[in-house]
């Protein structure tokens, strides 16, 4: 089924919503020549939802359709807190009700199966077709489970999970830790960068250790790290492990997991076999399959999507933008960065549809907090500025990770969750 403009207006209550958005959010928008232009955004995570919202805020004359497979938002940030038992899995789940209503976005719950880039149409599993002038892909990542022998069968038996996409896997890993006996071994096998949330496995070790310290103090955590050192916030994590959980966490670098056997509960790297009572294997990642299907996952390893850093337009297919964890970049892959990329992309699309030149040198701020206990956390923050000459985001001086964690940054971590969820979903 093809949905035309009249049908779009009828279904979405577009006129009223556009008026409301015009009154509330678009105060700074320039006069628009983009009336009737259509943008389709695929994926309503921290990148896609934000991009859809800010296009509408910055030019309410542009029609935005946001296509998302899931009917509720599930936050990966804070999911380690669920694994450590200091939050419930329900607290990760948020409603999509407000976003389309507040900003006059047409939200569709369906799965995109393909894109006809010549005719500029998005095709969905239900058989619908959506025309676009500009398309934004924000589908997130897939896991390269085929690189770890035995992973798929181990996961299908419910024995091993990555828990790096929040939801049922988060709940499963928490349940496995609850069932683990005191004195048990929890193995976390993590991949080398690049990948989503590189500090996640180390925060996870902290959260599990926090739980063990109170309930299973004889237990041990072995980290098999595919990287040569702690990837992010290394001094802070190592200091926290020593201070809060002495002797409990053993970090083994240069130990990429290549095999898992759920019948013997063994993880193997190139160098050793490690038995665990609970095994958490995080495989290497790549841009979601949709990016490959569409033809924008075109780096030399077929893992990530090269884009123009000023507009996030694919270098492979004009008119298609890619944001979030799927992008080929030296910028970290995180919710915070996805949000910033979404805003840069939204502003560029508004400019392009209005016949203006986009800002050639935008700025991305990257912040990530990691909790080290139920009352301490530490941040990393970096400002990166796009250099169109070098076609790269250049790290500005002064950024980096804090060497210590404290209670103030735990409070800020909580505020960060609340405010990024609000910025994404309201």
């Amino acid at each position, binding site marked *: 089924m093809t949905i035309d403009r009249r049908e779009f207006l009828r279904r979405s209550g577009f006129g009223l919503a556009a008026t409301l958005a015009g009154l509330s959010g678009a105060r700074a928008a320039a006069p628009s020549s983009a009336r009737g232009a259509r943008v389709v955004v695929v994926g309503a995570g921290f990148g896609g939802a934000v991009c859809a919202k800010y296009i509408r805020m910055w030019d309410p004359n542009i029609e935005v359709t946001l296509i998302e497979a899931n009917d509720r938002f599930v936050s990966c940030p804070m999911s380690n807190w669920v694994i450590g038992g200091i939050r419930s899995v329900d607290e990760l789940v948020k409603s999509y009700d407000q976003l389309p209503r507040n900003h006059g976005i047409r939200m569709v719950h369906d799965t995109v199966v393909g894109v006809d880039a010549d005719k500029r149409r998005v095709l969905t599993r239900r058989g619908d077709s959506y025309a676009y002038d500009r398309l934004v892909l924000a589908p997130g990542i897939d896991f390269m489970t085929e690189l770890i022998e035995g992973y798929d069968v181990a996961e299908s038996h419910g024995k091993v999970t990555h828990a790096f996409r929040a939801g049922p896997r988060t709940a499963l890993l928490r349940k496995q830790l609850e069932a683990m006996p005191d004195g048990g071994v929890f193995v976390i096998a993590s991949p080398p960068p690049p990948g989503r949330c590189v500090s996640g496995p180390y925060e996870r070790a902290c959260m599990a250790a926090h739980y063990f310290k109170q309930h299973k103090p004889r237990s041990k955590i072995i980290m098999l790290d595919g990287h040569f050192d702690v990837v992010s916030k290394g001094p802070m994590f190592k200091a926290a492990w020593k201070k809060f959980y002495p002797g409990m966490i053993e970090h083994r670098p240069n130990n990429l997991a290549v095999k898992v056997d759920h019948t013997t509960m063994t993880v193997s790297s190139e160098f050793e076999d490690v038995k665990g009572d609970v095994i958490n294997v995080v495989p290497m990642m790549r841009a979601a399959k949709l990016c490959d299907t569409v033809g924008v996952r075109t780096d030399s390893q077929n893992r990530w999507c090269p884009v123009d850093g000023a507009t996030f337009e694919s270098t492979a297919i004009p008119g298609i933008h890619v944001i979030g964890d799927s992008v080929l970049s030296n910028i970290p892959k995180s919710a*915070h960065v996805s949000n910033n990329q979404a805003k840069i992309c939204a502003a560029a699309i508004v*400019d392009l549809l209005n016949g203006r030149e986009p800002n050639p040198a935008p700025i991305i701020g990257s912040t990530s907090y990691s909790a080290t206990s139920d009352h301490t956390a530490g941040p990393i923050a970096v400002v990166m500025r796009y250099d169109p000459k070098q076609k790269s985001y250049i790290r500005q001086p002064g950024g980096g990770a804090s060497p210590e964690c404290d209670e*103030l940054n735990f409070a*800020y971590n909580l*505020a960060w969750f609340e405010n990024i969820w609000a910025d994404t979903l309201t």
Partner: protein
Amino acid sequence: MKKKVMSFIGIGLYAVTATAGAADTHIRVTAATCYICHGPNGKSEHAIPGLAGQDRNYLVQAMKEQKTAARETTVMRKYMLGYTDAEIEAMADFFASVK
């Protein structure tokens, strides 16, 4: 080399010919990056303070003090060292004007 020179000229032309609209876009998008921690439109009900409607001079002073570490900070010093003074002043104007 020729390509490099051309792209350098391109940036220069942008800077010279950039309209107030383009400069506004740069600041509007950069300010929007602050919303992640300081709340949508700079309005926060949580431990990280809001920026919307704050006094312009106070915001400039606070940001510049963080840059020179005259004021105790967390991530803010790391951020401020990445911004120019002109960007700091323009962002202060932006947030001071949010109702």
